[in-house]
C-alpha cells in the first residue's frame, strides 16, 4: 500500500527532472514556447476533468477561471512586483474562491443549467475586467518580465515551471480519482439522487470539485502574463480555452487522469503544428472534427477505445 504513492511521487519527480534537463539543454527556443502551451493545456484539461469528467458537471466557464488567475497575477505584478511562485499561488487561490462561490450558487442547478451559468460567469467577469483600468481594462497591459531568469531565458524558465505545475495537477487528479472522493464523485455523476441516498455528501463533494478545479485553472493562468507579456481581455477570456478544456478530456477519455493528459498532448501539439504549417483556420476546425468524431465513434475517448480493443 505504501509503495504506490511512493512510486507515483517518483514518477512525478522524474518528469520534473526531465523537464529541468530539457530546459538546461537549451535546445531550440521554439520547443519551449510550443511546449509551454501544450503543458498549459495539460493543466487546464486535467483541472476541467476533475469537475467535468469525474463529477459530470460540464463547465463552459474555463476562460473565466483561467483569466482570473492571469489577472490576479497582473494585479500583483502591478502592485507589488510579486515573484512568480506567489503569483501562481495567489492566482490559484483566487480562482479557487471563485470556484467555491460559483459552486455554492450554481450547483443546485443541474446538467445543462449549470453549464449555462458557467458560460455566463465568463461574460460577467470579462465585463468587469474591461472596466477595471488598473489591470489594463479594455486596452490591455504590457507586462515586463523580471530580468536574470534561471536557464538563460524567461520562457525556458516558464516552461520548467509549467512542467512542475502539470505534474502537480496530474498528481492531484490522480489522488482524487483513486480516493473515496473520486468514488463519491463517480457515484454522483451516475445518479445524484441514488448517491445522496447512499450517504454520499454530494453538495460537499461538488464544492470540493469546483474549488480544486478552479484552483488548478487559476494556477494555469497565473504565469500567462509573463508568457505573452501583454494581457488584454479578449485573449485572456478566449473561447479557445473553453473549447479545448472540454475537447481534450473528451478525446483522451474523461474517466481517468491519463485521459486529459493524452488529449492535451495530442490536440495541443496538433494545434501548435497546424498554426505554423497548414493554417490557423484549421486550428479550431481540427478540434471540431476530432471532437465530433470521438463523440460519435469513441464516446469514452482514446482510453475507452484502447480498453475496448484490449478487453473485447
Amino acid at each position, binding site marked *: 500500500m505504501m509503495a504506490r504513492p511512493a512510486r507515483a511521487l517518483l514518477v512525478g519527480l522524474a518528469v520534473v527532472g526531465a523537464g529541468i534537463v530539457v530546459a538546461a539543454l537549451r535546445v*531550440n527556443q521554439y520547443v519551449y514556447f510550443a511546449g509551454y*502551451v501544450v503543458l498549459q493545456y495539460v493543466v487546464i484539461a486535467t483541472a476541467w476533468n476533475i469537475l467535468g469528467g469525474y463529477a459530470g458537471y460540464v463547465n463552459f466557464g474555463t476562460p473565466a477561471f483561467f483569466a482570473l488567475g492571469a489577472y490576479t497575477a497582473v494585479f500583483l505584478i502591478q502592485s507589488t512586483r510579486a515573484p512568480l511562485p506567489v503569483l501562481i499561488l495567489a492566482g490559484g487561490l483566487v480562482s479557487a474562491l471563485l470556484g467555491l462561490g460559483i459552486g455554492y450558487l450554481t450547483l443546485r442547478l443541474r446538467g445543462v443549467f449549470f453549464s449555462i451559468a458557467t458560460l455566463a460567469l465568463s461574460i460577467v467577469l470579462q465585463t468587469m475586467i474591461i472596466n477595471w483600468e488598473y489591470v489594463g481594462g479594455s486596452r490591455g497591459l504590457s507586462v*515586463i518580465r523580471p530580468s536574470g531568469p534561471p536557464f538563460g531565458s524567461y520562457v525556458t524558465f516558464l516552461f520548467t515551471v509549467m512542467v512542475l505545475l502539470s505534474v502537480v495537477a496530474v498528481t492531484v487528479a490522480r489522488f482524487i480519482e483513486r480516493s473515496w472522493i473520486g468514488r463519491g464523485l463517480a457515484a454522483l455523476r451516475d445518479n445524484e439522487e441514488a448517491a445522496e441516498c447512499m450517504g454520499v455528501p454530494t453538495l460537499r463533494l461538488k464544492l470540493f470539485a469546483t474549488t480544486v478545479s478552479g484552483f488548478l485553472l487559476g494556477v494555469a493562468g497565473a504565469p500567462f502574463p509573463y508568457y*505573452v*507579456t501583454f494581457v488584454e481581455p479578449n485573449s485572456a477570456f478566449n473561447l479557445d480555452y473553453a473549447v479545448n478544456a472540454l475537447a481534450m478530456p473528451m478525446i483522451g477519455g474523461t474517466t481517468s487522469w491519463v485521459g486529459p493528459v493524452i488529449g492535451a498532448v495530442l490536440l495541443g501539439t496538433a494545434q501548435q503544428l497546424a498554426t*505554423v504549417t497548414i493554417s490557423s483556420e484549421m486550428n479550431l476546425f481540427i478540434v471540431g472534427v476530432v471532437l465530433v468524431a470521438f463523440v460519435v465513434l469513441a464516446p469514452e475517448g482514446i482510453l475507452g477505445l484502447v480498453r475496448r480493443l484490449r478487453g473485447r
Partner: protein
Amino acid sequence: MKRSGTWGLLNWALIGATVGALVLASGGVFVARGADPIKIGFGMALTGGLSANGKPALLAVQIWKDDVNKRGGLLGRPVELVYYDDQTNPATVPGIYTKLLDVDKVDLIISGYGTNLIAPLMPIAMERKLTILGMFGLANNEKYRYPNFFQIQPAGPDPQTSTAIGFFELAATQTPRPQTVAIVGADAEYPQNALVGARELIKKFGFKTVYDKTYPPSTVDYTPIVRAIKATNADIVFVASYPPDSVGMLRAAHEVGLQPKIFGGGMVGLQFTSVMTSMGSMLNGVVNYDFWAPEPTMLAFPGIKEFLNEYQARAAKAGVDPLGYYLPPYSYALVQVLGQAVDATKSLDQQKLADYIRATEFNTIVGRVKFGKNGEWAKGRTLMVQYQKVHGTGIEQFRGPGKKVVLYPEELKSGAIIYPYSAAKN
C-alpha cells in the same frame, strides 16, 4: 590485364562522373548559397477581428517583395516572406516569432498589424536585440523605450492625441466657434486611447464637455446612445469606435437626426471600401481621421500610383479590400524602409539597420518618413478628411478625388471644410 584495364577505365569513368557531379553539385550549392534568399518573417491577422486589414497588409508586403525581386532582390539575394496567421490573438505571437527566428531562421522581422499584436513581440525583439518595424501600433514603445523599434503609422511623437488633434484644431477654427463637446467611444483598446487624447485636447482648446461616456463593444443598438447625445445638444460630437460600432453610430445618427456642427473624429472603419460602399451618402459631412485618400496632394508621392495599380489589379483575386487606401500604402512603405536600410548599410546586422533607420529620412510611397521619439514618426501626419458629395453607394466614385477631401494637415490640404455638418449632409 585486359579485364583489369576495362575495370580501370570504368573506375576512372565512375570517379570522373562522381567528381563531375560533385563539382556540378557544389557549383549548385554555391549558386544556391549566393542566391540564398533573405527571409523576412512576420505574423499577420489573416483570421479573426483584424483580418479585414491584415489580409490587404499582407498583399502590400507581397507586392513589395515582387517589386524588389524584379529589381534583383536585396544585396543580390532574392527576398522571401515567411508568415503565419496570428488569428488576431496576442497569445499566439510569442510562439510564432520564436518559430520564425529559431526554426525558420528568418533574417529580418516585421510586426503583424495592430497594437495588440505588436505588444507581445516587443520583449522577444528586445531580448534578442532585433530591429522591429511595427505596423500600425499605438504607443507600443511608450513603456519599453526600445531604441530599435520603429512604427509606420503616422501618429507622431504623441500617439494618444494624434487621432483627435486635427479634428479639434479644425473645430476650433470654425465660425461660429463651436462651444460644447460630446465624446463617446467603445470599451476597447484603440477607442479608449483616442478618448484619453480627446479629453486632453478639449481642455487645451477650451471646449466644454457635456457628454463623456463609453459603451461595451458588443452593443448592437446605438440609437439610445445617440439619443442621449442629441439631448445634450453638443456642437461637436467626437466618436472613437471600431468598424461595427462606427457603422452603428452613423446609422443611428441618421435615424435620430443628430445635427451637431461637426461630427466624426476617430471612427475606424469608415476608411474601408466595404463600409464606404455600404454607407454611401450617409457619409457626407463626416469629418474623420484617415491615413490616405486619393487626393492630388497624396498622389504626388513617388511610386504610389504604380503601387495602387498593382494592388487593385491583385486585390480581387486575393479577395481583399478592392481600393486599398487605408493600410496597404503604409504596409508597403514599412518594408520599403527596411529594404532601403538593408541596401544602404549592405548588411543584415540588426544594430546597423536600426542605427541607419534612426538616422535617415526615407523616401517612400507615403511620403518622406523620419522616425523620432520612441520610434514614432518625428512629426505626426494623421489626416482629417471630410466626406463630400457622395452619391449612392457606387465604388467607382471613391477612386477619384473630391469624395474624401483632406482638410488637415495644412500641407496636404486638398479642399475646404463644409461647415456645419448639416450643410454637407445633403
